[in-house]
């Protein structure tokens, strides 16, 4: 049985520039603020913090997770639609592959189907154990083990 609850978003796009140009667009404040947000800051190292400010002034905190120039860049962030005190994060990973003179860019965002911590009580214990295991795997992955 497949669930309709989306946990993973995946897109692949072909870009006309080589990976080193795409890398700059993804990993520098100047690049990110040109296409992603209105303003961006980034400390480009695993564990470094980054922020993205969107039109309207909303700022989202991000944490840099993987920096493997010019092939893999990943971060975790709080979804803009979730409450500010919500501890959950989704994981976003960009993979850059040379494609002729351009780049094949893949973006995968995972973690939408995380359970809120508070629901792991008696009301929902039917799936608690399996979910705890999955969360641990996600955490290990995200922590760059």
């Amino acid at each position, binding site marked *: *049985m497949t*669930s*309709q*609850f*989306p*946990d993973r*978003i995946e*897109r692949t*796009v072909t*870009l*006309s*520039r080589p990976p080193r*140009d*795409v890398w700059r*667009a993804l990993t520098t404040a100047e*690049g990110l603020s*040109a*296409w*992603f947000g209105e303003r961006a800051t980034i400390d480009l190292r695993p564990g470094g913090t980054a922020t993205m400010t969107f039109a309207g002034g909303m700022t989202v905190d991000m944490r840099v997770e993987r920096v493997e120039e010019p092939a893999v860049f990943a971060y975790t962030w709080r*979804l*803009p*639609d*979730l*409450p500010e005190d*919500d501890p*959950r994060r989704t994981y976003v990973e960009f993979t850059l592959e040379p494609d002729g003179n351009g780049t094949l*860019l893949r*973006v995968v*965002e995972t973690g*939408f*189907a*995380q*359970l*809120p*911590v*508070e*629901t792991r009580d008696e*009301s*929902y214990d*039917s*799936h608690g154990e*399996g*979910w705890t295991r*999955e969360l641990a795997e996600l955490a290990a992955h995200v922590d760059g083990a």
Partner: protein
Amino acid sequence: MAPDLEAIAEQVFVALADPTRRAILAALATDGPATATDLAARLPITRQAIAKHLALLADAGLITPEPGERRRVRYRLRSAPVQLAQQFLAALANDWDNRLDALQTYLATP
């Protein structure tokens, strides 16, 4: 476990589809935990109808019964299932298509 997430989200959306239940949740959010009698006094609904809606909301995990004064059960709002449903919507609304269009345009600019 994923189908359980789906089930929780579905229960939340069903619960929120009814204006009376939204009014009950709004009352609990505004004024804190309340008994069925409190809610019947505050909302234009009969005590019997309130009880039916409270049962559905409790099944969905949106409210939780707790002992109140004079051995009356009172109900407290639980936001966790709502946050889960929000996350469902966030996944749908998360806009990588537009973002990647913007990236393509940016990189195509000489």
